[in-house]
């Protein structure tokens, strides 16, 4: 009887990349404000990863519209109770912070560094928002399962964190920076995020009860349990504990986390739109 919004792969990627963008940014911001000079690679990669991703996110959102040329119409409104409305604004706001933080990170003058840290601290809020709001957006619809999932935003945020941190660590590994101290810290942060994510996931399923059927039973169940829970969270956590010795394994773990993050968005979006 009810209708789905027919949001396909473009939106799955938007959710996924937006999570990484927000997650990598706020990781960089927190490292910038609470870490040390040794965390510089993490900070740099975090900021500079978020910028192209948020640009891609913007393009995906615009392209998915029925009339893409009218995307600016969303700036006619600001409905703070409407995730879609604030979301349209915040993508831009976050982009602005990402850009500022990136530009400011080019300079090593102390004044710029201090400014950068202040800007990023504020921008962290935008980063949290970008990673999580799409979950709140889904649960503010009339569709069963989505509308009953109170923890969807919280889950997306945790996933944004885990995938953002995994992305940073993967890029660090590929650029040869895994020898630095920053690698260990971002890995540690990632492990904390993954545990938080698993806990929230358990609460998420618990609160939903039988309403979670679209993802825990039927054709999407293998992807959910296998792709997200096992391959995307449990195995990488296990690998990571081992991989403090073998960095390559840790890097593989990061890839798996990214994979799991993608599967999470895919399953949540597609399971009731099939």
């Amino acid at each position: 009887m009810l209708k789905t919004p027919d949001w396909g792969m473009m939106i799955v990627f938007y959710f996924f990349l937006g999570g990484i963008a927000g997650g990598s940014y706020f990781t960089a911001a927190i490292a910038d404000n609470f870490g040390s000079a040794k965390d510089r690679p993490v900070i740099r990669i975090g900021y500079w990863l978020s910028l192209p991703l948020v640009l891609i996110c913007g393009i995906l959102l615009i392209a998915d519209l029925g009339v893409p040329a009218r995307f600016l119409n969303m700036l006619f409104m600001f409905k703070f109770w409407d995730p879609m409305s604030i979301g349209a604004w915040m993508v831009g706001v976050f982009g602005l912070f990402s850009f500022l933080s990136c530009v400011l990170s080019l300079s090593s003058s102390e004044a710029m560094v201090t400014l950068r840290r202040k800007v990023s601290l504020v921008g962290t809020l935008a980063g949290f928002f970008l990673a999580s709001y799409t979950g709140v957006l889904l649960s503010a619809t009339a569709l069963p399962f989505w509308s009953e999932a109170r923890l969807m935003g919280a889950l997306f945020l945790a996933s944004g964190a885990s995938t953002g941190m995994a992305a940073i660590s993967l890029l660090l590994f590929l650029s040869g920076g895994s020898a630095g101290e920053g690698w260990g810290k971002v890995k540690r942060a990632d492990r904390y995020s993954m545990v938080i994510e698993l806990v929230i996931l358990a609460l998420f399923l618990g609160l939903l009860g039988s309403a979670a059927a679209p993802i825990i039973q039927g054709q999407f169940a293998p992807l959910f349990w296998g792709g997200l829970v096992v391959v995307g969270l449990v195995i990488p956590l296990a690998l990571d504990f081992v991989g403090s010795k073998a960095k390559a394994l840790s890097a593989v773990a990061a890839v798996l986390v990214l994979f799991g993050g993608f599967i999470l968005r895919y399953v949540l979006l597609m399971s009731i739109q099939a």
Partner: protein
Amino acid sequence: MARTLAMFTDISLCIGCRACQVACKQWNELPMEDPEWTGTYQNHAHFTDKTYRLVRFIEKPQADGRLQWDLMSDVCKHCAQAGCLEACPTGAIYRTEYGTVNINQDMCNGCRYCVSSCPFGVVAFNHDTGRASKCTFCNDRIHNGLGPACAKACPTESIQFGFRDELVAKAKKRVETLKGMGFRGANLYGADSNEFLGGLNAFFLLLDKPGTYNLPDKPKLPQRNVFVDSLLSVGSAVLVGLGAIVAFRERGEGKGGGGNA
């Protein structure tokens, strides 16, 4: 704000002729679609982007051997608290001075959030135009002293149009009359502003429970949980943020970072 207008669909008078369905298509110049086989006379299971008024046919054999065949002309409810309107990020969905809800086709950018935000599954996306569309409450007609095309076409006056307060008063009397005639299940759906969604500006007289007509018993505004969901997200952010702080914080060097970047 002008006086609120409403459509009152009294299904006890409906003969399922579908003049309303066709009059609506004709007035709005909606193109033909491929009909669906539903196993009944109904030609679409639900509203589409090109069918704004849909007559439903529901066969219900009764315990006493009688057959009840419910004929119901369904339409957008023009809710006083409308999920689609609250969801629309461009403001294309707006409420007219008459209380009706309309989608401005010149403004809609086709994000489709409204499609998923209607508790009744009314709003649909038109793939040809790239915009969302639904019953306009014949916006052009009501701004020119006329009523909706469906109400005009209905031969038995099952669809009535007028000021909401007058129609509600009439509808309440009608329920009593029907109960007196033996229709014990007669009830109004959406007439009472205190019941749900602030009341519906297209409300119904049903002869049975709402579920019989695939209507939700107590429809709710989809945006009601945004605050709670947001708080829970903030909680998640706090946890994740604390975890990251703990992971990156230098022992013995205090907060605020140190050294040069």
